[in-house]
């Protein structure tokens, strides 16, 4: 029997059985509209409030600072567009990095078209944003800084606490895209001085199509989706009760298992990195060696192209990705790999392998067995490779 190794947890994860079980009653039995008054709706409302507390607990916020959304991308859009508008009287300058997820980058590009000024901070060769560059970039009109906590493509972790302390002192709002971080890194919005934080359930074994935005009490943020009075009038639309329940359960489990998960994944990640670098020539690790997400690996193999690599891995039962999943429809090389200084043709041959709770060290061994001959085969085909 061929082995199947799903190693694309940064793209999405399977819903955990416990999470699905918690969700199920809210499809067919507890289906009332939580905004209604009657008994079956009340238990729905209660379920949503419990999930709100679970999210708040996971990031050290208060329940009434948590707002449910339709996905991480919506949370990012809401935070940036909302602050840009609600604080337009204070300034028009937003700072972010050049290695954000497209949910942030494309929103910033949109805001630029609306006349906002955006600074894209550079990163070092590991992909870490420079706090010095940030300090030089803030000016009187800076209303918001948005920094990715852990990079989805290269796994690198940013110094969020340090940045938060600086911005807190400067009284500049701080948004953090923590979509990749939740469940992998400890998060404390108080200690880190975070004012807004985005997260998405399907990255930590919850369902797709539900996210949340943490909004610190006192932060003005106009609605992004206007309509009914759901989410205390700040995010309209009938609540996705089952999804929200799933998010709550998933974040509770992920946070309580955070240390165990790290202890499981870090050795797998480290072995894969060490062995690939040892066994395969002309390969580069992208992102920081240590300062990275626990299950996250990203290589560039010179002389070969990413899609071909993915197809052959797929044939071998290994599911990985090349850059972020949601850009694989596009042909452009990853903006993150270019930002850390990779030339175009090397950025093209990148491979992201991201482990999760159901992976084992045997999966790593299997990858180590299958990957080298595949790389060899593609290199033999390449006009760029002269062995």
């Amino acid at each position, binding site marked *: 029997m061929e082995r199947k190794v799903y190693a694309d947890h940064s793209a999405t994860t399977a819903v955990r059985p416990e999470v699905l079980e918690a969700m199920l009653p809210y499809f067919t039995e507890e289906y009332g509209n939580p905004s209604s008054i009657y008994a079956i709706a009340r238990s729905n409302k209660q379920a949503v409030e419990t999930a709100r507390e679970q999210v708040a607990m996971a990031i050290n916020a208060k329940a009434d600072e948590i707002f449910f959304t339709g996905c991480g991308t919506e949370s990012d859009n809401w935070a940036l567009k909302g602050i840009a508008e609600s604080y337009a009287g204070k300034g028009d300058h937003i700072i972010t990095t050049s290695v954000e997820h497209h949910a942030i980058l494309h929103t910033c590009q949109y805001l630029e078209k609306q006349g906002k000024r955006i600074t894209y901070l550079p990163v070092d060769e590991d992909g870490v944003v420079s706090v010095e560059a940030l300090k030089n970039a803030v000016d009187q009109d800076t209303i918001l800084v948005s920094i990715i906590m852990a990079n989805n493509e290269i796994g690198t972790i940013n110094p969020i606490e340090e940045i938060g302390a600086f911005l807190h002192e400067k009284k500049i709002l701080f948004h953090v895209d923590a979509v990749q971080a939740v469940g992998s890194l400890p998060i404390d919005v108080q200690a880190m001085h975070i004012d807004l934080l985005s997260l998405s359930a399907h990255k930590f074994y919850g369902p797709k199509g539900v996210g949340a935005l943490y909004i610190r009490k006192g932060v003005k943020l106009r609605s992004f989706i206007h309509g009914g009075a759901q989410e205390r009038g700040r995010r309209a639309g009938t609540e996705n009760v089952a999804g929200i329940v799933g998010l709550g359960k998933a974040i509770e489990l992920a946070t309580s298992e955070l240390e165990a998960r790290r202890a499981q994944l870090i050795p797998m990640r480290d072995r894969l990195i060490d062995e690939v670098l040892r066994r395969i020539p002309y390969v580069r690790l992208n992102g920081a060696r240590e300062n990275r997400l626990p299950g996250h690996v990203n290589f560039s193999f010179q002389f070969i*192209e990413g899609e*071909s690599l993915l197809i052959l891995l797929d044939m071998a039962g290994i599911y990985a990705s090349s850059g972020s999943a949601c850009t694989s429809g596009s042909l452009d090389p990853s903006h993150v790999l270019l930002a850390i200084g990779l030339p175009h043709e090397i950025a093209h041959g990148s491979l992201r392998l991201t482990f999760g709770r159901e992976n084992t060290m045997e999966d790593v061994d299997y990858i180590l067995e299958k990957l080298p001959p595949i790389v060899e085969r593609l290199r033999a085909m390449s*006009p760029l490779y002269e062995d």
Partner: protein
Amino acid sequence: MYSEKVMDHFMNPRNMGEIEDADGVGTVGNAKCGDIMRIFLKVEDGVIQDVKFKTFGCGAAVATSSMATEMVVGKTVEEALKVTNKAVMEALDGLPPVKVHCSLLAEQAIHAALWDYAQKHNITIEGLKPPVEDIEEIEEEE
């Protein structure tokens, strides 16, 4: 996403490799995605006797290279010129819309190799234009 024929040519590429003493060699890069293809030709009495390719590119690029080499081998130089990317795609049972540009790589690489052959042998092939550095193609935007 890919047809069975594409997958077959990708998994078992025909004519992959190099020809040591090729009569014509053509290399083209795709401006759209940065991928690169090289074609080697062996021509005798105006007929393509042998053809090989090397590709740094996606699955579609490999499959179209493979299919294109099969379609030109044994053909006269003039016939080979008429093997369009459209014909190659049809032979492969189609490509996804975002992958149409990849099939141009193969067509253009063959043209470039034929041009190189003509230059080296001091002949003119009717209808053959000099190869461009980077090929590009206007696609419909949604």
